[in-house]
């Protein structure tokens, strides 16, 4: 079975986003960019499935401009077999991305799509569910435990009230949560080797998908700042303030 892992290049999780002075977006030049942490976990899981003999090939794909290939190199270095970039703007909308990935999944005959539940830049949490819908596949979202046995995947989902276990008939789309696994690091020799692996570049037209924009970002601003608070000496003083000044407890 082939596993398709879509990945995204985003502002590094440890960098605080800064709004551009002209309010057109967030600064992404000259700041550290990385593979989206959720995508990294999905990739790790795909590699583990291959190691368990449940997967023959791990295919990674990204949608973006040329610089997005950085994350494909990272993915190849940790063990992906094949890497593809669909040449479209970095800010392509989730529905278009889902259409591109649908075409790719069909072309590659993927039996499972493993992907992050959301990207930490746009925080949309849409693409996996949309992809599953377009393919007519089942979906297990926010998964923190996964066992694949042939054509069946048992997925434990993190839901608001606790956990839910579903058994998925493959093919399916599985979106992963943070506690699924601890991603491995790439070794230096593998990073060097990954540099030489060719990356296939695909045009959206060749997948029969038109890249359109239905949402326009009119402005991006900083959230309101909180005022600096006061330091208290003890828990007793704190309780007094909350009781008598704030009248909240």
């Amino acid at each position, binding site marked *: 079975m082939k596993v398709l892992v879509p990945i995204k290049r985003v502002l590094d999780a*440890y960098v*605080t*986003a800064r709004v551009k002075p002209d309010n057109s977006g*967030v600064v992404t030049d000259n700041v550290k960019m990385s593979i989206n942490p959720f995508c990294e976990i999905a990739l790790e899981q795909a590699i583990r499935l291959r190691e368990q003999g449940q997967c023959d090939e791990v295919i990674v794909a990204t949608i973006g401009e040329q610089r997005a290939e950085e994350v494909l190199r990272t993915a190849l270095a940790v063990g992906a077999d094949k890497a593809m970039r669909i040449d479209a703007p970095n800010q392509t*909308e*989730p*529905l278009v991305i*889902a259409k591109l990935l649908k075409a790719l999944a069909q072309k590659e005959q993927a039996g499972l799509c493993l992907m992050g*539940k959301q990207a*930490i830049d746009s*925080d*949309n*949490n*849409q693409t996996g*569910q*949309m992809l*599953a*819908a*377009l393919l*007519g*596949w*089942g979906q*297990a*979202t*926010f998964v*923190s435990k996964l066992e694949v046995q042939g054509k069946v995947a048992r997925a434990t989902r*993190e*839901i*608001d*009230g*606790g*956990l*839910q*276990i*579903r*058994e998925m*008939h493959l093919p399916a789309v599985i979106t992963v949560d*943070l*506690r699924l696994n601890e991603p491995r690091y790439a070794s230096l020799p593998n990073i060097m080797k990954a540099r030489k692996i060719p990356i296939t570049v695909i045009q959206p037209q060749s997948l029969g998908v038109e890249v359109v924009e*239905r*949402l*326009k*970002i009119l*402005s*991006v*601003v*900083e*959230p309101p700042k909180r005022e600096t*608070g*006061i*330091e*208290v000496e003890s*828990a*007793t003083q*704190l*309780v007094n303030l*909350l009781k008598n000044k*704030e009248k*909240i*407890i």
Partner: protein
Amino acid sequence: MSVLLIAEHDGETLARASQSALRAASLLKGDITAVIAAADEQAQKIAEKLASLKGVKKLLIIKDQRFLHEDAEALAATLVPIAQNFKYIVVAATGYGKNLMPRLAALIDKQQVSDIIEVLAENRFRRPIYAGNAIATIESSDSIIPLTVRTTAFEPIEEQDQPAVIEEIKIVEDAEHSLAEFIEEKLSSSERPELTSAQIVISGGRGMQASENFQMIEKIADKLKAAVGASRAAVDAGYVTNDYQVGQTGKIVAPELYIAVGISGAIQHLAGMKDSKIIVAINKDPDAPIFRIADYRLVEDLFVALPEFAKALE
């Protein structure tokens, strides 16, 4: 122009989150039709509550045993013909709404706007991006706009005098039935208020050091009638279960009072609580980032501070 509100429930009661989503729906133009999917025996009570809420003109009930448990595949397929007749489709951005809405949006070929915090105009919304470090104003040109609603940004709606008309709809069996099987649910039960709607939340982080130390937090929570939360670090360490997690990818809370104990304040945690009215932070590290957004800072070892806090409440 009209609005379809998808309501959520736990099998017994209507989710409070849906009342917030209804508030957002009432800010859009057009009559509101609410829809609820439930198993036979669950439906009536939930439907009555929903019909009594302000703004709901009509209520559709989809009764089917498949909806005894959350089933996004079946529900999205069922909603497709209904959704086509509306200008907006609205659901709360809870685990339920996040799982369902993009699937429905893709089936009707519409681009969703996630997690809105404000309705500015009929096709213009504000939403947080980058873990709430930026707020984007988005304009949609779609003919139907699927929206998920950040519940902390909208007050739950009140009841109305004249309940809505309830209409039951039969659903057509569809092929999506066999895509997945429900196996089991492991739900946490607690006598405390629900995390996302509690007036007071007290959360513990990695600094709690062990699962049993959360008892100190629970003791205070019980005195304050507060909900208990946690940072991702505390959940990862196994001190508490995943449903306690507050943050960018966990639950978003905005109570009157948020008390962060032994939480350093990673960007991802702040994203889930920084809209709380009053923030109190207790941490022994004076440089902890949580202090930058706290209204009251107590720089002290939590193992000293918590017992003293509990005693001061007596």
